[in-house]
């Protein structure tokens, strides 16, 4: 007690104390390294990892493109433009042979008349001709049993239509006038090929039916040698001066099998200058394929058939061709008709000058906006001689609203949208989706994990069980249910992705809290009276930030991936230009237009790879103990 009283009795004043070693240097060695912070250290470690740096740059470039391209690119991705669909990717000028907007198609029927591939689209022959880069026609013809408009030759099959006994089928030409003068000749050739369409060669006869009489040309037989028959001579013999007649083929049926005759040609001819020369030519079968095509197409019925007529061994050629897709769509258009009102609207806009009273020569092109280059002819109508329409030549791209020939780096898709802009707009949507989700999951997971990790005990157990149940629901089930209930909009996506997404961050944060909460610095701070709040946010959290940030970066990559995967399951984002929906929609063109699938696939693969590399680099940088391991 006495001691205490003594101590209390002493009064201390600041002057009583003096600092020893106040200005003395107490270190015996200088620091050899510069002082560093955690962030600086992490940055240095990150830079050492080359692949992560590369990953970071690729991610940055892709993100920059996703921001810039949709703003800068003038290409149209909103209004469907049918003529511009499926253009090939173009980087180099046409003709370089690689990435030049050309597309090579193999094995297409060759159109011999126009010397172009037989295409089903409605482009004119001239357009396709001017767009063709190269065409290789097969040396050997292919024989088909179908009448193709591009086929030639072959045999007309005249056949019975069912295996029945004792029926005679008739195949007869339209009637025309024959006389005993002028050397009317009938020539026919046949083929004796067996087994056509599982039928058998039949017994047939040919005769001329004229003025109620039958002049036999070849009696019933299986003789398939050529016929050359002088009709005029036969008429003279019969004493018929002239009359309307027709050539008739008769085919006997068989109960066993269908029967047929193969007629290669059946030509009627006469001296030059006879009245019905044209008639004769029309009813002659000089080319079997043409004959069947005309009969089938126009149904002119020059030959009536009670059985079945068809074609056998028609000859077509296939070709491989390379076409400049841009020239087809934007190239030099043929003469196109424009109405007068269109022309006047251009004059009004100051694009060109035209004087209808002078004619086509008066056309002057003023600006590049004008869709025509020259006027070929004009039509005037009525008493007032008002201009009704003009026929003009010009570049098609001007008509489609471009001032110069467009070129699309990745080509265009089924709606005629520029794939570059479409892809990067989609990537932007995906990135925004990823950022929104990651931001929410980051905040929520951080709070959840902090509370669970910091307080531990029963709070932790309850929160963990909750997570366990929630994570038990498969992701696809959550997504499906969310989309069925709330539609496939952006908010639903973020909500559904967040519903389970935050648990990763929460688990990571919880582990970090378990790791750090027992450390001495936390104990020291607690001794000094720091609140729970302060301990969590000021002391523990900053230390575990690295790992958590890394998780969030990787989360963005997984969200992009999830969105695309869902689109492939027909659960894609609606109403937004999403990357996944685009990829899934283009998937069906994989066989025909692989560029529509491959370019986006490369972009998303590049994005995923570099995000993962970047994320792994970050993880290693923030956590030195993990260095080297994957």
């Amino acid at each position, binding site marked *: 007690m006495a001691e205490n009283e003594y101590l209390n009795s002493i009064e201390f004043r600041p002057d009583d104390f003096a600092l020893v070693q106040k200005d003395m240097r107490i270190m015996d060695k200088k620091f050899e390294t510069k002082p560093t912070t955690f962030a600086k250290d992490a940055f240095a470690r990150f830079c050492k990892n080359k692949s992560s740096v590369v990953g970071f740059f690729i991610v940055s470039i892709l993100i920059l493109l996703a921001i810039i391209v949709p703003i800068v690119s003038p290409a149209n991705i909103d209004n469907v433009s049918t003529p511009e669909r499926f253009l090939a990717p173009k980087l180099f000028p046409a003709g370089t042979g690689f990435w030049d907007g050309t597309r090579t198609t193999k094995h297409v029927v060759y159109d011999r008349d126009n010397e172009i591939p037989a295409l089903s689209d409605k482009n004119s022959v001239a357009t396709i001709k001017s767009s063709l880069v190269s065409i290789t026609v097969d040396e050997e013809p292919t024989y088909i049993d179908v009448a193709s408009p591009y086929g030639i030759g072959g045999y007309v099959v005249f056949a019975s239509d069912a295996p029945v006994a004792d029926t005679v089928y008739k195949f007869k030409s339209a009637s025309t006038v024959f006389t005993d003068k002028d050397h009317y000749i009938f020539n026919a050739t046949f083929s004796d090929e067996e087994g056509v369409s599982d039928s058998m060669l039949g017994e047939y006869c040919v005769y001329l039916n004229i003025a109620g009489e039958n002049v036999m040309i070849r009696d019933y037989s299986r003789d398939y040698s050529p016929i050359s028959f002088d009709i005029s001579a036969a008429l003279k013999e019969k004493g018929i001066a002239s009359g309307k007649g027709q050539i008739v083929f008769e085919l006997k049926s068989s109960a066993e099998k269908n029967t047929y005759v193969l007629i290669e040609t059946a030509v009627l001819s006469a001296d030059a200058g006879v009245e019905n020369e044209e008639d004769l030519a029309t009813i002659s079968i000089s080319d079997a394929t043409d004959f069947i095509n005309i009969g089938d197409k126009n149904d002119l019925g020059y030959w009536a058939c009670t059985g079945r007529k068809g074609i056998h061994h028609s000859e077509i050629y296939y070709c491989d061709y390379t076409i400049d897709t841009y020239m087809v769509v934007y190239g030099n258009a043929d003469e196109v008709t424009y109405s007068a009102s269109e022309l006047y609207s251009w004059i009004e806009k100051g694009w060109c000058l035209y004087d209808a009273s002078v004619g086509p020569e008066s056309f002057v092109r003023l600006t590049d906006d004008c869709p025509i280059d020259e006027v070929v002819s004009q039509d005037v109508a009525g008493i007032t001689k008002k201009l009704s329409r003009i026929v003009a030549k010009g570049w098609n791209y001007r008509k489609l609203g471009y001032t110069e020939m467009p070129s699309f780096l990745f080509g265009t898709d089924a709606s005629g949208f520029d794939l570059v802009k479409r892809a990067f707009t989609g990537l932007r949507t995906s990135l925004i989706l990823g950022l929104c989700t990651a931001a929410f999951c980051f905040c929520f997971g951080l709070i959840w994990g902090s509370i669970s990790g910091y307080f531990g005990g029963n709070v932790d157990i309850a929160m963990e069980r909750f997570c366990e*149940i929630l994570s038990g629901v498969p992701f*696809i*089930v959550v997504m499906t249910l969310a989309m069925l*209930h709330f539609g496939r909009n952006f908010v639903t996506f973020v909500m559904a992705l967040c519903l389970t997404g935050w648990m990763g961050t929460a688990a990571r944060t919880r582990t970090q809290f378990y790791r750090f909460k027992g450390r001495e610095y936390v104990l020291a701070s607690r001794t000094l009276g720091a609140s729970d709040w302060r301990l969590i946010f000021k002391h523990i959290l900053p230390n575990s930030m690295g790992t958590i940030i890394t998780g969030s970066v990787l989360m963005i990559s997984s969200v992009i991936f999830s969105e695309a995967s869902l689109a492939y*399951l027909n659960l894609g984002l609606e109403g937004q230009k999403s990357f996944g929906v685009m990829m899934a929609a283009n998937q069906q063109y*994989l*066989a025909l237009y692989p560029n529509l699938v491959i370019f986006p696939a490369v972009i998303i693969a590049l994005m995923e790879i570099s995000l993962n590399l970047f994320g792994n680099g970050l993880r290693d940088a923030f956590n030195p103990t993990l260095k080297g*391991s994957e």
Partner: protein
Amino acid sequence: MTKYVLKRLGLAVITAYIVLSLTFICVKLLPFERPLGGDAVQTAYFDKQYHLGYVQRFEYENPSYGELLYKTKPDKGRSYYYYQVPVLEQYGKWISNIVTKWDWGYSKNYQPNVAATVIIGSRIGYSMKLNIISTLLAVPIGILFGIWAALKKNTMTDHTISTLVMVFISVPSFVLISFMMRVFCYNLQWLPSTWPADTAPFWNRVKGYIIPVFCLSFGSICLYCRYVRAELCEILESDYLLLARTKGLTRRQAIVRHALKNAMVPVFPMVLGEVLSIMGGSMILENLYSIPGVGKLFILSLNYRDFDILFVDMAIFTTFGLMAGVLIDLSYGFIDPRIRMGAKK
């Protein structure tokens, strides 16, 4: 240990129960849509639903009961009126139907009035066959590559394998499938571009397996390779392996007898888990390659708004997923006695 196993299993069952219940209620809360089929189909469907207890049937109009779902054509001057039963009552009926009759409902539009379990049963075989084959392929290849990379650590071989693994893990599966189909089906025309029918010749069917099996196993190969490499690298630098070498074992002996066995500890449970969890089928693959498995069925039932099938499909995915989780955790304890799952500090 037994206690832990029981606890894990119990928890899995409870989780499955909660998940399935939530799913059931969520699905039932969706607006009711009538079947697309004709009157006969509709009547049969509503009759089935009535017998299962999901709708109520009256012989007169009863607006006080709720929303009128369907009214049959008058038969002998009599019509039936079908009404929606409250969701919670349906829920009770649903549980009793499953427990007592193992009745999971009927298809509405996809194959009208066929039991959902029958439809699933006819399709699950395809998915399982594919997954078993791909696992059989993936496990040895993945482990071999992993071992190879680890033994040649920090050489060109290791870097090449690690880079490829990194790339292929990052490339989304649909991208891989698209590329393979483009190259092998369209450019080279070696393989069929869709799943061959059951009636196709044997060789065509075998060819049909190549792309799906390859795509399914590729991800797993990379995963196994990565794990085995990481694990083996750590073990190769451990003290006990050094001891083994100092005892006089050759490098080969030390690796085969000591390192490999331990490296398999984290890999084996992964294999088990993978086999189970992909039993459900890979949805994207089945959709892109038109494989008639349960994954494709999921998409079909969603498109047909056939929620009973969708529900059973979801149940399969959930159950397999949970089972896989439990199995992974349990097998750790069986394989490596040092690990005591769930043990206190």
